[in-house]
Structure formats: C-alpha cells, structure tokens
C-alpha cells in the first residue's frame, strides 16, 4: 500500500528535518568555538573522565616541577657553601703544612693561629648559612643558628632531620643534609668534626706543638679526612642535582605527552570540524530551500 502523504506529513517532515540540521549545526558550532570535541560529560563519558584525570595528573606534574626547582636551588646554595668550606680547609692545610716546618718560630705559629681562628669563624658562618630565614644545615630545627662555640667546643642545636619533597608519585628528594653529619661527622663511619680540627689546630699552633699527639702534623692528617668528608657531601649534592635535572627533563617531556594525550581525547579535529560545519550549513540551507518550495503548492493554486 502506498503511503498517503498529507500537508501535515510534509510540515512535520520539514520541521523535523530543519530541527535535526540545526542541532547538528549548533553542535559543530560549539566544537568550532571551544576547539573541543568533548564539551559535556555525555559527549563521551569515558573520554571526559580521562580528560579530568589527565588534568589532575598535569596539576601534579606542575607541582613536581615546582618541588624540583625548590630542590635545585636548595642543592645549589648548599653546594656553593661547601665550595667555600673546602677552600677554607685547603687554606688550613696550607697553613698547617707551612707551620709544621721546624724553621718556624713559636711566635710565627701564634700569629698563624689567629688566621686559623679566622678560618674557623668563616666555616662556622658557612655552617650557619640561612636562606630565606631558614638555616640550611640545621635539620628540622632550622629557625635558629645550629652551630655555636662555647667553652672551646662547637655544639650543634639542630637535629638530624632531612626535608624531603616529592618529585613524582613514588620518589622524593632531600633538600638538606643535617649539619652534624656534614660538619661533625655524626653517624659517618670515619667522620671527623671539622670544628674540632680547627680548634685543635689553633691550640697546637698556640702551644707550638708540632709532633705531639694533638700536634700540627696530626691535624694535617685530620684536615685531609675533613676535606674528603666535605667533598663526599659535595658529590652527594652533585648527585641530587643531577637527579633533579633528569627528573625535570622527564617531567617536561611527560607534560608534553600528557597534553598530547588529553588533546587527542578532548580536542576537536579542526579540519574535520570545519568541513562538518560547512557540510551541515549546506544541508541546512538545502533543507530551508526545499521546505519553502514543498510547502507552497496545493490544488488551490490550480483551481481558478
């Protein structure tokens, strides 16, 4: 049976057709203006949830980047301090070597002891370095200077805390080395207290003691150990620096990849969207035109 077609059939068809074409046009228009394929959860529920997850991951990558640059600047400032400490130790060794010569007079040694005292003060200052009001060699207790000299000995008021920051969801990096370990050898296998070495050297020079148990020659050996100790921490900081740099590079690559992945899921394919837009526009115009021609004629037009 052929289908009867009435004016209402045509009118409904025209309305539906125009509405459909217009809806498609509106959706494509939204994609064109936002640049996104997914504008509502329902556009692609799985994709939308992944987009949100990737955005969250991007946030944490940005956070890790921030943490890494904090770590890098902390490591750099610690390392430059240690550079100064090594210089002062080398200078102390030079002085000790010179004064170990028998040709030096007790007076000369006394004079030199003053320079050693000066070096001690400098190293003490280094050990009490603060960055943004935080003493970087004080462990967790970093609000007050960790090292102070009293009664012929340098005491440590900090603790052995190490401040870690996250560099990924599973790894972290320490910003600091506790001062007692670095400067006083606490917890090290053959650690030496650098301040002790200076104090002993000063005393030996003052007492004109060259080859006694605590004499200048003994101190030369201890200075070597001290230099090694500081250098090993410089190596440690160097390693952390490298770790941070590598992590930073990895994160910037991950950020790009993450962005690409999100873009693949969320972004509209510009070419496809524009050609769709043109296509739907054409379809819409064609629908309008055919509608205007379809709705016009009836038998009335021909009954005169």
């Amino acid at each position: 049976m052929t289908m009867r077609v009435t004016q209402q059939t045509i009118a409904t068809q025209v309305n539906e057709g125009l509405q459909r074409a217009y809806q498609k046009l509106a959706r494509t228009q939204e994609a064109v203006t936002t640049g996104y394929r997914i504008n509502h959860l329902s556009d692609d529920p799985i994709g939308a949830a992944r987009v949100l997850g990737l955005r969250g991951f991007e946030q944490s990558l940005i956070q890790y980047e921030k943490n890494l640059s904090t770590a890098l600047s902390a490591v750099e400032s610690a390392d430059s301090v240690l550079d100064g400490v090594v210089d002062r130790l080398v200078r102390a060794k030079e002085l000790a070597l010179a004064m170990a010569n028998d040709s030096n007079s007790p007076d000369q040694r006394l004079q030199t002891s003053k320079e050693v005292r000066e070096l001690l003060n400098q190293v003490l200052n280094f050990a009490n370095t603060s960055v943004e009001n935080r003493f970087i060699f004080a462990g967790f207790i970093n609000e007050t200077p960790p090292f102070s000299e009293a009664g012929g000995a340098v005491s440590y008021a900090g603790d052995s805390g190490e401040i870690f920051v996250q560099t990924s969801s599973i790894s972290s990096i320490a910003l600091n080395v506790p001062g007692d370990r670095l400067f006083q050898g606490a917890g090290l296998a053959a650690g030496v207290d650098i301040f002790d070495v200076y104090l002993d050297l000063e005393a030996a020079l003052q007492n004109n003691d060259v080859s006694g148990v605590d004499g200048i020659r003994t101190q030369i050996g201890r200075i070597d150990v001290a230099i090694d100790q500081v250098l090993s921490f410089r190596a440690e900081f160097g390693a952390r620096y490298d770790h941070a740099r590598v992590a930073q590079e990895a994160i910037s690559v991950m950020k790009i990849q993450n962005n690409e992945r999100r873009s693949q899921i969320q972004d509209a394919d510009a070419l496809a969207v524009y050609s769709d837009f043109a296509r739907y526009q054409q379809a819409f115009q064609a629908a309008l035109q055919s509608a205007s021609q379809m709705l016009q004629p009836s038998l009335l037009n021909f009954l005169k």
Partner: protein
Amino acid sequence: MGILSTLSIGAQALKAQQLGIQTAGHNLANVATPGFSRQRVDLVTAYPSFEGGVFVGAGVDAASIQRVVDAFTEAELIGLHGQVGYSEAESRALSSLQEVFPLSGGVNGALSEFFGALSDLASNPAGSVERVSVIAKARALGETLALARQSLTSMQFNLDKDLASAVARVNVLTEQVARLNEQIAFIEVHGGPANDFRDQRQTLLQELTSLTGATVREDANGQVTVAVDGLLLVGGARFASLSADGLNVNGLHSLTYRSPDGTTFDASTLFAAGEIGSLLNARDKLFQDVIDRLDLFAQTLVGQFNTQHALGFDLNGNAGGNLFAPIAGATGAAAAVRVDAALAADPRLLAAAQSATTLPGDNRNALALVGLSSTTIPALGGLTLEDHFLALIGDVGSQVQSAQSRADFQRALLTQTQARRESVSGVSIDEEMTKLIQFQRAFEASSLLVRTADEMYQTLIDMAR
C-alpha cells in the same frame, strides 16, 4: 415504479452529496487540529425495490460517518507516549545533572589545588604564606563541594515542582477522560460513532499516558479503562485523583493516590513509568545517588585529612587538631566541609611536623597529607579520593549519554508512528478538495434529477388535462 420513487432517489442523493460536502468541509476546517482524524461518509446503495419482476435501484443511502483510524496504530501511539514521556523527562533531568560537573575546575580541580598547596607547604613547612594558602585552598574545596551539592539539591527540588505540576495535569485529564467516556457511551448507544469525542479522548489519553505510563483498554460500550500498574485512574465515568502534598524525609513531596471511591494511600513507589515515574526515579534515585556519593566523598575526605592531621604537630609543638570541622554523618556532608575554626584563625596550628621536637623544618606530616592523594580508601571502594570522584563523573556521563540516546530513539519511533497515523487519518487538502468537487458535481446532477422528476409530473398533469 413511480415518479415518486425517482423524486425520492433525487432527494436522498441530494442529502447524501450534501453530507459529503459537509464532511469534506469539516475535514478541511480541522486540517490543523491536533489529534483530528479525517472522516468519511459511508455511502451505500439503498435497498432496491422489487417491482414487476425486476430489482430496481433505489438510490443512495448515507449509512454513517466514520473516522478513518487504524486501531493498532492508535494503541501503539498511546504506549509510545508513555515511553517518550519517561525518557524525555529522564534526559532533561540528567542533562541538567551533568552541568554540575564541568570539564575544568569544579570539585576535582579544587581537590588538586588543595593537594598542590599541601605540597608547597611540604617544601616550606614553616612558611606563613604556604600555611595561609593551604587554609584558603581547603576552604575553596569545601565551598566548591557545597556549591555542587546545593546545585544538586535545587535541581532535585525543581524535579519536585515538575512532579507537582504533572500531578495537577493528571487530575484534569482523568476527569476529562471520564466525562468523554460518559458522552461517547451515550452517543454510541443512540446511534452513530462519536467521532470527534473519540478524537478528543485519544488526544487526552496520549497526554495522560505520557504523564503516567498508564495502560488503556477499551470496553465493549466504547468507554476506556485507564490504569497504572493495577491502580485505576479512569474507569467509565469514575476517575481517581493524585496529590503531591505530603513531605518525605528529604523535604520532597510524596504521591498520594485517591481512588474513585475515596480511599487514599501513598503511591510514590507505584509509579514507575511515564513522566511522573521518570521524575520520581530521577529525584529519588539518580539525583539522590549522586548526592549520596558526593556526601560519602566529602565525609571520607574530612575523616582522612583529620586523622592524618591529628598525627602531626603544629608550629607551637602541640599535637595536631582538626584540619576540617568534623562531620557527624554522611547525610549533608558535602555541604558541611569547612576548615576547622581554630585552624582558620591561626595558620600556625597546621600540623606539618611529625614530632614536637623537630620544629619548624619538619615537613613529614605535610608529606603524609600530600600522600593522601594516592592513598586508596576502602570506604570509597578501594579507590583514591580523586579516582572515586572521577568514577562518579564517569557514571553521570554514561547515564546522561544513554538517557539521551534512549530519548532520541523513542522520539524517532514516536515521530515515525505519528507519520503512520497521519498517513491513515491525516487530512489531505487536495484530497478533500477533490471530494468537494466530486460531491458538488453529484449534487448538481441530483438536483437535475429532481427537476426531471418535476417535469415528468408536469407532463403527466398536462397529459391528463
């Protein structure tokens, strides 16, 4: 065989053609009336007379005026209206639901910013800027959650209002259908089909099933019985009514059914189809489920952070207090996430350290708080906070998507069926005009017959003179 019967054929024919013209006119006049079915005059040859050994035709009879309908399509349309009513209301409700969860920012954005601020605190645990920032982000997270929950509950109340107006409309419709039942039965007992009343009733029934998903059965006397899952809405001239005036525990309306004989009971759970069923489902299940999950998320978040925070020590060396104001139960939790009042007043109370003796540089508790971002939580089905939220969003999105495609499908089916009905029952202007001309010519011819009969009489009279 007399001239009289010739005259009678002419008169009958004039009457029949005029009926044809009037019916075509009625059809044309109602070309745009919703629910109208075109009508047709059933013309039959009149019972012939047997005269002089032959059957002689006795002209035409207009037996009746019938509407042209396909009962199967009409019944199908009523069923489809129930489905479309359900799926369109569902799709509308869910489309507004998804706007609570934007694709950038929103609750998960606020959550990751909060974790970011905690991470900054870990880098500088004594920093006052970092501490203030953690508190500000915690507050923003609470406000975002509260806003989301508030949007959800206000949408829930809007659904409730829609329900009330749907119920009011049902009451109007059941009464009108009952009236029409009465009229149709009366008219049809006395003769011909009650065409126009039937069209009206069919339109009302479509709207009534669209609202309630009711089933319709036509009885032998032409009346319809309308029922929802065994609940009688209309039976003959009797009709039931609904009211939405009681309030349930959530401050939302419950549905009361009042039968034609006056017994009343709560029918909130009995309506599962049509717009009303859909509104009840969206209000009490879909939206409530999302609200409950958001509340669970908020309650777990507050509990987890408070527990970890209490393990730490603040800048004054005291054990950590609450980070968020504690929440008693899950209900309403998402609207109650606030920074603990004491902490909000004094950022030093933020417990970033793990021990009272390692201040102020100890960041281990701050790190532990950051670690909550990757901690899986049994109460959240073994997911992390963020993943639980993303799962919620994924579920909402899938529900919206399938509801929309269901609604699109049902709507397309309805359009097709309506087109089929239109094809059978719709008025074609051209067709009616053709009939109009046809009947007009027949009318002219019949009048000629009357004149001929008249002239025949005249001839006979002249003959007799």
